[in-house]
């Protein structure tokens, strides 16, 4: 019993995704093939029922990690295991089963649904596609609508997407993911396109699903404010690497990595009396193509020293359950 509990539901080892980028003539002559290191050697583990946030600035590789964990794209190196099985070696039928158990909730509800399908058809389609017996469809659809609190199911089912508000659409998108009774959900910027008043409802709903269904969730966002409402643990990414991993409350109260500190300081607060001093970070976004060794933040980090250029800092534990990749924390 305890061994199955301790086994992570989803785990990644040395997970890497490189994309080819345009090369200069000189690079071509030298036979070099420059790559963009979108995800670069990430190790992570999500325990069953855990809700984990993935934060980082635009282009840091969050969506790419989400897609790798769902086998929507293949890694350049490293592997992903789901319930202990290597996703790279799944049989055809095992892949089909995995596609039911792991679901994605898209960044933008307005693009995620087929505008010509009624809500009923949108929700039934995944069931037909995965061979769920027809007699079960009505019950399963009603169950998923109940989970997302979408009022009177009979009325919702005939509606078309354009007849629903943004918040209702996002609930439908969630229901579509839940209809297959998944164990693992990746929610990519689930509320960034929604109004504040609607966001609150969706964030509450995600929490509730975590508690009632025991779903394992990876919630992707650039905004820690949103993540803290849903996730007990947070991973911070910078240019393809996880630079900090720990309990969300601890990361917000005592961020250990210089990048996390800047990220937290950058969040505007809903009251007038708030700090407005310059962020402890130089320059613009770094370039994932160029920095192969050393710490990728070093050009922007106010604390950088010699070692930061020479050695890549490993993700090392600084307290139980709290890992940081920064030479300031290694000895």
């Amino acid at each position, binding site marked *: 019993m305890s061994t199955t509990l301790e086994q992570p539901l989803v785990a990644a080892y040395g997970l890497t995704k490189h994309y080819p980028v345009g090369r200069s003539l000189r690079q071509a002559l030298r036979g070099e093939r420059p790559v963009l290191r979108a995800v670069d050697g990430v190790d992570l583990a999500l325990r069953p029922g855990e809700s984990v946030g993935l934060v980082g*600035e*635009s282009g840091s590789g969050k969506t790419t990690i989400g897609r790798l964990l769902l086998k929507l794209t293949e890694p350049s190196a490293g592997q992903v295991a789901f319930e202990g099985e290597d996703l790279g070696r799944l049989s055809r039928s095992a892949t089909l089963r995995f596609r039911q158990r792991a679901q994605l909730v898209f960044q933008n509800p307005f693009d995620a649904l087929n505008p010509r399908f009624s809500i009923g058809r949108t929700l039934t389609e995944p069931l037909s596609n995965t061979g769920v017996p027809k007699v079960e469809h009505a019950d399963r659809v009603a169950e998923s609508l109940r989970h997302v609190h979408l*009022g009177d199911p009979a009325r919702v089912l005939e509606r078309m997407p354009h007849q629903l*508000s*943004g*918040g209702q659409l996002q609930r439908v998108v969630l229901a579509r993911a839940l209809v297959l009774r998944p164990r693992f959900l990746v929610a990519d910027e689930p509320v960034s396109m929604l*109004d*504040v*008043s*609607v*966001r*609150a*409802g969706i*964030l*509450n709903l995600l*929490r509730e699903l975590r508690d009632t269904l025991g779903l394992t969730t990876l919630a992707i966002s*650039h*905004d*820690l*404010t*949103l993540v*803290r*409402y849903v996730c007990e643990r947070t991973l911070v990414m910078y240019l393809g690497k996880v630079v900090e991993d720990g309990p969300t409350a601890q990361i*917000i*109260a005592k961020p250990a990595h210089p990048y996390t500190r*800047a*990220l*937290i300081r*950058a*969040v*505007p*607060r*809903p*009251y*007038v*009396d*708030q700090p*407005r001093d*310059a*962020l402890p*970070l130089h320059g*613009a*976004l770094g370039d994932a193509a160029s920095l192969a060794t050393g710490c990728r933040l070093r050009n922007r980090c106010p604390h950088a020293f010699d070692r930061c250029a020479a050695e890549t800092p490993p993700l090392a534990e600084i307290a139980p359950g709290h890992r940081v990749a920064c030479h300031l924390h290694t000895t």
Partner: protein
Amino acid sequence: MTELLAVRDLAVAYANGTVHAVDGANLTLRRGGMLGLVGESGCGKTTLARALMGVLPGGARITRGEARLDGTDLVALAPAERRARLWRDLAFVPQTAMSALDPVYRLRDQMREVLCDRGGLSRAEADMRAAELFEAVGLHPRRLADYPHQFSGGMRQRAAIALALALRPKLVIADEPVTALDVIVQRQVLDTFRSLSAELGLSAIIVTHDISVVAYLCDQVAVMYAGRVVEHGPTDAVLEQPSHPYTMGLMNAFPDLESDEAVLAPIEGSPPPLSDPPPGCRFAPRCPFAEAICTREVPPPVTLAPDHWSACHRAPEAAALRQRARDPLTWRDVAEAAA
């Protein structure tokens, strides 16, 4: 006179007058002030901003009211006269920066077009001014040689701001200037506005649905609901002592990085269709404090302090309502009553 802009009872209709996207909006902006215009989507923020700029889409027109900029009523001006004021007196940063920039021209050429053709500068003067403007918004003047697609989202937003500032307008209106940006780039753009306000005395209206952006940047705030401004005042007063139930609801629904609140209290329901708004107070169907009078009579603005007003029949009881509004159950009850 320190008042730069005064909007009175402004109304804008789309589709042959069937949709009143703005319906009796009032607001004022001090010279050198930063005003945040907040509200849920569909409340008419973009329509109001475009009406002030004189850049409404076809089929939309101003049906009543006035908008005085330095005493001149913009609404009464002939279209040609209004166009002549665009860029010089007022400038606009549209909701997507990409639509402010022309993808086929280098930024330098777009700057020249505004500075030479509209501002009457020579080419050499224009290039010098363009370099200054880029520096002012934190972009390297070298980047003037680039095309818009070579910029990141945040850089594009700053280039659009630089373009808007080209002829030193009295007023800049920016529609959701940071909504699509990640928090670090967002902070850079907000700081660009802050330093322009401090150093050049820029006056601006910042349209946003993010209360934190207003709290960080703006000294005044106007809260818009269903085509009308429902609360208006200094940012600290409005955020600390919200006096319109809609503002109270927005504040409750808003997540903060460190608040102790375990759950957020959403405002249930959504804004009414502007083709068929409810009578009286338009917030009444979602308001936990609605009374009989609310659905009969349009609430007039009630002055609570100098410069701070709320268009709510129960504004005099605001302190007591605030207490009740803090309880999430207060809002849930309305949802259940409506269901």
